[in-house]
């Protein structure tokens, strides 16, 4: 009997360790000097130096800012477009099932397949080596995904709300912006955070489209593996700093995903 209750817990603990240990080890490595980083000891020596170095030397601080501008910009740019597209799909069945599938199909394309044409296009209009260019690229790449998410949210908004608004004197456009959008706020917030995370973590486009001053966090971290060797402690500090905003964002998204604002509108 005891074994029956203990065995599942042992398996669960093992799996928990399997998932949690690598990031925890990264956290540990970010607080030890580079020279002893590879030692198996839990905490041979404690230091803040990796973080200090990361932000005072090199381009990491700049990369942090670039990442933020590109990700936030892409979200601000892409979200309204995704909202309108998703609404059209949800409410008017625009293009039928086929167009819905096409939107999803773009996500099945490996990024490598489009990076070269994008690079060629961007070079033509002078958008390579610029955060603005990256922002535009991210907005475009995330658009289908955000559209898909928001479509689901809009489908959950009772059509009677829009009807009520239209009868009350709103145009279809006003009903969308004054009623549907505020009611879908939790969904829009969730989509915004997801879009931000996708852009924040993106590596390939950032690597190809940016230069030393316009690099984002993933590219800057890759740059720390220099000819002097892998600066593992500093990379760990960079990884921790890179994850931090996402950790905060995931708390936010959780709260919004759970909260159903439409409750009370209908019965």
């Amino acid at each position, binding site marked *: 009997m005891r074994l029956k209750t203990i065995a599942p817990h042992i398996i669960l603990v093992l799996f928990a360790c399997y998932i949690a240990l690598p990031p925890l080890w990264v956290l540990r490595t970010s607080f030890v000097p580079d020279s002893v980083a590879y030692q198996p000891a839990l905490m041979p020596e404690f230091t803040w130096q990796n973080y200090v170095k990361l932000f005072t030397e090199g381009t990491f601080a700049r990369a942090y800012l670039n990442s933020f501008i590109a990700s936030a910009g892409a979200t601000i740019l892409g979200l309204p477009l995704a909202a309108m597209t998703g609404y059209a799909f949800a409410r008017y069945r625009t293009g039928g099932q086929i167009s819905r599938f096409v939107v999803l199909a773009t996500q099945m394309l490996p990024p490598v397949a489009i990076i070269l044409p994008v690079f060629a296009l961007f070079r033509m209009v002078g958008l390579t080596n610029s955060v603005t260019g990256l922002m535009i690229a991210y907005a475009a790449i995330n658009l289908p995904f955000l559209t898909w998410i928001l479509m689901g949210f809009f489908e959950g908004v009772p059509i009677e709300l829009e*009807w*009520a608004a239209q*009868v009350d*004197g709103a*145009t279809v456009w006003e009903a969308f912006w004054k009623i549907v959008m505020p009611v879908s706020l939790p969904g829009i917030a969730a989509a915004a955070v997801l879009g931000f995370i996708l852009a924040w973590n993106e590596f390939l486009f950032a690597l190809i489209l940016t230069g030393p001053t316009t690099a984002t966090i993933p590219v800057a971290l890759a740059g720390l593996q220099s000819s002097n060797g892998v600066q593992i402690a500093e990379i760990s500090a960079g990884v921790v700093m890179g994850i931090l905003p996402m950790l905060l964002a995931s708390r936010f998204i959780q709260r919004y995903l759970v909260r159903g604002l439409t*409750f*009370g*509108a209908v019965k």
Partner: protein
Amino acid sequence: MADIELRNVSKRYTGRVAAVEDVNLHIRDGEFMIFLGPSGCGKSTTLRMIAGLENISSGELFIGGKRMNDVAPRDRNIAVVFQSYALYPHMTVAENLAFGLKMHKRPQSEIEERVKRVSAMLGIGQFLERKPAALSGGQRQRVALGRALVRDPAAFLLDEPLSNLDAQLRADMRLELVKLHRQLGSTIIHVTHDQVEAMTMGERICIMKDGRVVQVGAPLDVYRNPANTFVAGFLASPPMNLIEARLTGEGDGLWVEAGAMRLQVPAAYREAYRAYVDKPVIFGIRAEDIHAHQAQPDWQALDADVVALETLGAEVVLVMGISGIARADIAARLGRDYRAQIGSRQQLYADLAEMQLFDPQTTNAIPRPQP
């Protein structure tokens, strides 16, 4: 205020049967009209076409004499109360009430004045700063009604507004809506599948089935003269008893025969029904026209096998079978003190003064003089 007229209005969705077919209806200015029918009969679709929320596939719609087919909902000056209330969840009650007026760009002072007046009228003044989620079902219902009232529209379209309320509240709101109509005198179309609402609230009832209008008339008129077996069976609870029978003639007299039942047709109807002698008919008799005691000499005895007794307090509904008749759910409304053993045979008395005969082929009522 305005009258509403539908001329040959149809609604077809691509690849499906018509949802509404060739509806012709004139709702008079200031009339309280009920759309009654089972779910899926097209009554809500018709309402939405009047509101402009659905396109009219063919036919014409006039509100206040103006053709409205291509006019946007906001320019039709009508208000709709939805079954789900459809209150804007992110706005307070006051904002919900004011939304329509703001959309129509009314001055702020006027908006405040009207919101105040309507909320006082409906007794929701103390909830103005609350969000809909913090209101009870009945309160939400009032806010939805208030949102319609505040705009002072030409007509009100109510799409089953009472069906989410509990029985007591529904009865209260029924009365209140009728009172409101008397007070405002505006045109109201009330969609419902509840025959009690239909009978008690409307000045006229429009009964729909499968997208078509089956009968239009004053509640009592429709009740006493159903156009076909569908109306007879739908309006009222228990519905009119419909029994497959045969009409026979003997000398001057006519008889309705089914199994052991043999009832003489009143003299006044003989001429009207004579063409159906020796033909199958559907005999319709209301539950309240079957009595426990013979109070009138022309009431005719009827042997009934008691299947069930539903004691409702104010009355007893006797469910019975008649030997030789397949169906055993013939209902009679009897006095509250009536008692009988289940399974026993009882003698009851049928009053045929309001009987109906229906043609089994068309299911339409066979015309007869008014009682």
